[in-house]
């Protein structure tokens, strides 16, 4: 790159290296010092990049922020931001992989339940910001011919998500956000796994526990398994009751008809 007359794309790539990877050289050579080290001028943008994105992660993961303490959270965020900078200008979508990152980030990985709480927080964040969609009108299913009904695939509401955690992530999450130390102390992290359903209702985001079987059925339906086949294969006797509750709560927003050969 010629510092005397860099092409715009070359210059922008150099500034990006300076901001994300702290590799200032090429960009600094293009900047007028005017009494201040060009690297210090670039540093203002590096600070903004780090602070805006750390704040974005803090807003998406408030319970993790409290659980691991601010300093540790900021350290983790700094490394994560450098490794996985955002690919989208809508920062509500930034940080989907943060739970997996935390699971392999040594200072945090020692606390086994943190990644589970983080996955729950991401599902809550998704539910908060998901697009609006009308719930599925079940009369439209009833109007289908019998042959078509066997091929129905339900589409989950955009806010609906599932989380499975090895620890009682929901109880920990609630206690931490409520700053209820007594409740937190009463939780046995080894109490076993939880199967959680997250979705946005009229009153806000709901997090509820399902049985393992109901969760598996719901996961199959959310993944687009044909409804008929999912119900036949469901390991639980209450499959139809689970489906009825999801439909009544508006956790599906549409349907399509599967190809007869793949249903």
């Amino acid at each position, binding site marked *: 790159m010629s510092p005397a007359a860099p092409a715009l794309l070359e*210059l922008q790539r150099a500034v990006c290296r300076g901001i994300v990877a702290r590799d200032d050289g090429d960009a600094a050579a293009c900047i007028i010092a005017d009494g201040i080290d060009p690297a210090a001028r670039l540093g203002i943008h590096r600070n903004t990049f780090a602070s805006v994105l750390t704040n974005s992660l803090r807003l998406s993961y408030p319970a993790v922020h409290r659980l691991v303490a601010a300093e540790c959270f900021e350290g983790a965020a700094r490394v994560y931001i450098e490794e996985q900078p955002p690919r*989208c200008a809508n920062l509500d979508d930034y940080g989907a992989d943060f739970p997996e990152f935390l699971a392999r980030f040594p200072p945090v990985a020692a606390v086994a339940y943190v990644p589970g709480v983080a996955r729950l927080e991401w599902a809550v964040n998704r539910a908060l910001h998901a697009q609006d969609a009308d719930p599925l009108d079940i009369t439209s299913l009833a109007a289908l011919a019998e042959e078509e009904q066997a091929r129905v695939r339900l589409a989950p509401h955009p806010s609906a998500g599932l989380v499975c955690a090895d620890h009682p992530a929901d109880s920990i999450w609630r206690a931490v956000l409520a700053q209820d130390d007594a409740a937190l102390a009463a939780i046995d992290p080894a109490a076993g796994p939880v199967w959680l359903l997250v979705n946005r209702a009229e009153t806000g985001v709901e997090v509820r526990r399902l049985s393992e079987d109901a969760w598996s059925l719901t996961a199959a339906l959310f993944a687009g398994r044909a409804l008929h086949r999912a119900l036949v294969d469901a390991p639980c006797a209450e499959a139809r009751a689970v489906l009825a509750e999801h439909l009544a709560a508006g956790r599906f927003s549409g349907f399509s008809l599967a190809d007869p050969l793949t249903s």
Partner: protein
Amino acid sequence: MQQFGHSPIPPKAGIGLRFPHHQAVADTRPDVAWLEAHTENYMGGGTSLRCLETIRRDYPLSLHGVGLSLGSAEALDAAHLERVRHTVDRLEPALVSEHLSWSVVGGIYLADLLPLPMTEEALDVVCRHVEQVQAALRRRILVENPSTYLRFAHSTMPEWEFLAEVAERTGCGILCDVNNIHVSACNHGWNASAYLAALPPAAIGEIHLGGHARRKLDGGRVLHIDDHGSRVAPAVWTLYAEGLAHFGPTPTLVEWDTDVPPLEVLLEEAARAAALLEEVERESGRASAA
């Protein structure tokens, strides 16, 4: 879809609507002429969008974006432009604005409004992207002058000329951020009044006011930082009055994004802008009567 209609933004004082004030604005319907929201904050659904839609029934609305990256050498992010179009269609704002800056390269979003070199190449890029956005939204947009902390050695024209040329070539309007002019002028030794005077009054669609900070760097030099974290500085009020004398009465917005204070503080700042606007209205009324 709700039908709001394009209530025009009056040449009066408005405030930036931020999440901490949603409930207070919805409940108390404060006496402020219009509101501006950040486009990127309302791209999803749920309660915040519903709240804005409710508030929006009673106030003219402007949408102010930070993510289109008009100055990117590469193509605009089509998915983001589509999100902006969807949000604009849904909320039907009277004004839509973006920044004279860039924030995306190689698919990475740098979460900042980064400065451009003031070159013919950058001018062509910005004009092409402004035209693309205006075509996608089927409306004129406003482009805001940035606050900057660095300049590139290969720039060939002053920022005010660059901005005026973007408006001239694309037909877009200018969002004149008076605080940004003050900040950049302090940082680069420009004459803020000359900057204002060089902007074409007919293109000015909106004025922004906000607070800034002063940061002392190693070596003792001070940089002014546009952090929207305090009241509008006295020097910026003076420059604003100069701007109004030059542009005539213009919709004016008070922004506050860092350490957001109680709503009353924003309303006080807006009332101060409103008083200056009324003065200019009276004077322009006298001038046209004479």
